[in-house]
């Protein structure tokens, strides 16, 4: 370790020296000193040098969007650190007690031991409130970072072979994170979390056949009972984190096995990965980034209140607060419940069918299932069995991007519905109007988003092609000897051009009889889906077009009016 620092120190002023130092390969002291003795000791017992040799210089590509997963990872580390501190003080018990702490408006109020200990952490333990707020802010960021990370992976096609399984693992992490969040939200046993549990109880009771008994078992009798906080606590600090850590480890192992994807660029191919080595640059940046993420969370926790349980008071089934909402990541579920029109419930076969519960539950499960299954659906449509390590730019996969946009629109509608009451008060609207608007949005919005996104993607692909073939508009107007004015187009350099052309488009499947000479309905369906996916596409420019394009351009006769539609680029079946 020391020797590494020495070398970097000497490399500061003389860059050549640094390069010479790193040429020697991973810093492994060969003799002398405590460091050498220690590393020898370790090596003799662990064979650790093999790990260093294998991973010490592993290359990671550099792009800001590749850091989103790390934000999630680091938030999780912060959550574990702060959560461990909280467990030393929190009492997961619903035994009734009377508050006798610092906060005057709670003095003598009857509450559960859980609420009392949460207030104790906030008001009587120095720094306890800070840790509570760090824990909660980090939880919000954790799930938000997972969400953004998933969007990045989706829109760049990073889920394609060989990474489909890792997508599913990541999806499970997302679901586990939401479960962790909800169980944690319910622990303080305050009015807000109690009403959240009441909603969950009502939701479970509405599930056909098993609902009543599931709720009865979960709450250990009638709602709210005296068991639920203890049970959620076991889930929150033991079971869910254990599963989460296991999947997280698996997720990271796969990242190493697959090596990271990279964006198209000069020198980058499907068979290499270009970037910085783990030691030292990546370790410094990624390690430093942990402290930056932690720092942002610490700043938020020191300046901004989160979940002021002392305002909400202890849970009691009679009161409720205006603006009772779940934390943001459960918002889409709460919104789905709000959007159901009146009257969706009936009695049939002597049983109560709560369609107003069943439909949102099915919609949410369906949405999540679609997210989990998407890599396999797209793989089935393309039939592409190759490995993909170069990321798509979202525009170059218009149908996928449009599907993603539709999904985001749908999710956003549900999410917005969960804050319908706040939208009504803050924009002076009627709550009924807000709900009706969002109902229309959730039904129609995804189609609109699909259409608009797909058109925008194709337009952007056309623009890229135009730039590759004819350069970009320089803004310089030149008058030709004949009196004609043209705008001079400047060619992009080779590296930029490669970035713009290094993509592939699929053609729709041709419907051909199989070996038995049949065309099955399944084949027909797949060909129809394939057509829907790939019918509209802009092919990347070919070398020959490029040359003719250059020639064209050389005459300066080629203005902006050159129509793409004439070119071979736009392929329609």
């Amino acid at each position, binding site marked *: 370790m020391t020797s590494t620092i020495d070398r970097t120190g000497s490399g*500061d002023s003389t*860059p050549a020296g640094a390069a010479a130092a790193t040429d020697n390969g991973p810093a492994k002291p060969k003799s002398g000193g405590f460091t050498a003795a220690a590393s020898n000791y370790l090596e003799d017992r662990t064979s650790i040098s093999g790990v260093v040799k294998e991973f010490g*210089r*592993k290359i990671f590509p550099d792009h800001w969007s590749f850091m989103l997963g790390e934000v999630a990872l680091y938030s999780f580390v912060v959550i574990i650190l702060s959560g461990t501190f909280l467990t030393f003080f929190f009492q997961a018990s619903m035994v009734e007690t009377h508050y006798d702490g610092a906060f005057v408006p709670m003095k003598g109020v009857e509450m559960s031991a859980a609420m009392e200990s949460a207030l104790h952490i906030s008001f009587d333990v*120095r720094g306890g409130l*800070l840790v509570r*707020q760090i824990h909660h802010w980090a939880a919000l960021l954790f799930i938000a970072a997972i969400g953004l990370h998933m969007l990045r992976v989706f829109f760049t096609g990073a889920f394609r072979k060989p990474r489909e399984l890792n997508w599913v693992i990541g999806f499970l992490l997302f679901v586990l994170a939401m479960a962790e969040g909800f169980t944690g939200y319910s622990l303080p046993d305050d009015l807000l979390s109690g*009403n959240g549990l*009441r909603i969950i109880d*009502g939701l479970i009771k509405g599930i056909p056949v098993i*609902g*009543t*008994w599931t*709720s*009865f*078992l979960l709450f250990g009798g*009638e709602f709210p*009972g005296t068991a639920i906080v203890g049970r959620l606590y076991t889930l929150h600090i033991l079971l869910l984190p254990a599963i989460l850590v296991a999947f997280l480890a698996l997720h990271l192992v796969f990242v190493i096995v697959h090596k990271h994807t990279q964006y198209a660029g*000069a020198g980058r191919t*499907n*068979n290499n990965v*270009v970037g910085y*080595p783990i030691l030292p*640059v990546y370790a*410094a*940046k990624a390690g*430093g980034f942990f*402290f*930056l*993420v932690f*720092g942002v969370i*610490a700043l938020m926790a*020191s300046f901004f209140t989160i979940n002021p349980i002392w305002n909400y008071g202890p849970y009691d*089934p*009679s*009161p409720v607060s*205006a603006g*009772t909402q779940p934390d943001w990541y459960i918002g889409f579920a*709460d919104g789905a*419940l*709000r959007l159901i029109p*009146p009257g969706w*419930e009936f009695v049939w076969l*002597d049983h109560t069918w*709560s369609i*107003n519960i069943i439909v949102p539950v099915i919609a949410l499960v369906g949405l999540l299932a679609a997210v989990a299954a998407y890599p396999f659906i797209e793989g089935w449509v393309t*039939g*592409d*069995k*190759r*490995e993909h390590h170069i990321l798509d730019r979202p525009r170059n996969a218009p149908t996928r991007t449009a599907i993603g946009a539709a999904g985001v629109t749908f999710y956003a509608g549900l999410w917005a519905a969960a804050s*319908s*009451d706040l939208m009504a008060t803050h924009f002076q609207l009627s709550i*009924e109007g807000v709900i009706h608007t969002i109902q229309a949005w959730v039904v129609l919005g995804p189609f609109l988003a699909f259409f608009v996104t797909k058109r925008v993607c194709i337009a952007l692909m056309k623009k890229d092609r135009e730039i590759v073939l004819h350069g970009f508009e320089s803004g310089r107007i030149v008058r030709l000897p004949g009196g004609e004015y043209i705008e001079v187009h400047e060619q992009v350099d080779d590296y930029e051009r*490669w970035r713009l052309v290094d993509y*592939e488009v*699929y*053609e729709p499947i041709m419907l051909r009889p199989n070996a038995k000479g049949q065309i099955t309905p399944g084949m027909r369906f797949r060909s129809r889906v394939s057509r829907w996916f790939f019918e509209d*596409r802009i092919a*990347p420019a070919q070398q020959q077009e490029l040359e003719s394009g250059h020639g064209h351009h050389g005459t300066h006769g080629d203005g902006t009016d050159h129509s793409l539609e004439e070119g071979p680029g736009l392929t329609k079946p």
Partner: protein
Amino acid sequence: MAHDEVSGHDSAASDSSAVETSRAASTGTAVIASDVVNPGEPPHRKRVTDLDPKKAKHAQRTVYTLFYLSIAGSIFALAAYMAFPIEDGDIAAIRLNNLFIGVGSALALFGIGLGAVHWGKALMADKEGIDERHPIRGTQATRDRAVEIFHEADQESGFGRRTLIRNSLIGALVAFPLPGLVLFRGWAPQDEDPVELLSHTMWKKGSRLTLDPSGIPVKASDVTIGSVFHIIPEGLNERHDLLEQKAKAAVLLMRLNPDDLTISPGREDWSYDGIVAYSKICTHVGCPVALYEQQTHHLLCPCHQSTFDVTKECEVIFGPAKRPLPQLPIEVDSEGYLVARSDFNEPVGPSFWERS
């Protein structure tokens, strides 16, 4: 594995040929790719810290200053911990304790983070490397050996041959978790039936309507027009299962002009001179429906915005709920206090399967 030193162009050329072979593999549908040649790594651009020793010195100074700042932040947080004790229960002191310990810690964290990243960006060797990828799938030899091992294991154990052993083992493995699963029945009391419990509340004939939370009984004359009273049954506060009972028995009491009320047959004597009592527990998923508008006579649930019309026996006029709020039949006893005539005539709260 890791190519430490690769000069862009050569490797790009060799790699692109490898791409062609891999892309020729199995594409499913036809694929159109560009045949433009990968130009290889762009020329390396040196940083100012590489070119100008003075800038490098400056960067070095920035990095160690940040690390020292981090130490200062940690010390500041420690000092804040001691300077803002909160034992005296002063809210303002808690705010300062939170703020200054937090700011100190944030400074400590940012110092390390910014310093390390700046060090990595500006001072560490700016040399991109290239790793070669290999197919995730193992070599044919490895795969053949794996298959062989399984085969050998099967032969040596007789797993495939001795079907009686195998099938009985599978059966035993399926059966053994069952007792464990059944144990979870213990999550809820063995001798209670949820359907029975959900069908009744602690209201019974003659229970007085009392104020939430004090338990003071309410007289009919106390309830003026436009009032809303949050009601619990008499004796609730003495119950050991207070919250479970309250979660079913909470009631909202309102007085309207009797002419405004539409009363259906059979319910004529459920109210008293315009005073009506309805369950406070939403028939959607059970939030307390407590937002009473005294002019429109709407009852709104703040959780999912189900709206009930008190003048029409609390039928749903907006939102996801389906059923009206159950009405508690009330009358006045000899001393003028409001009492229940009976329990609710249907289960209160959210719907459940066996409710029908």
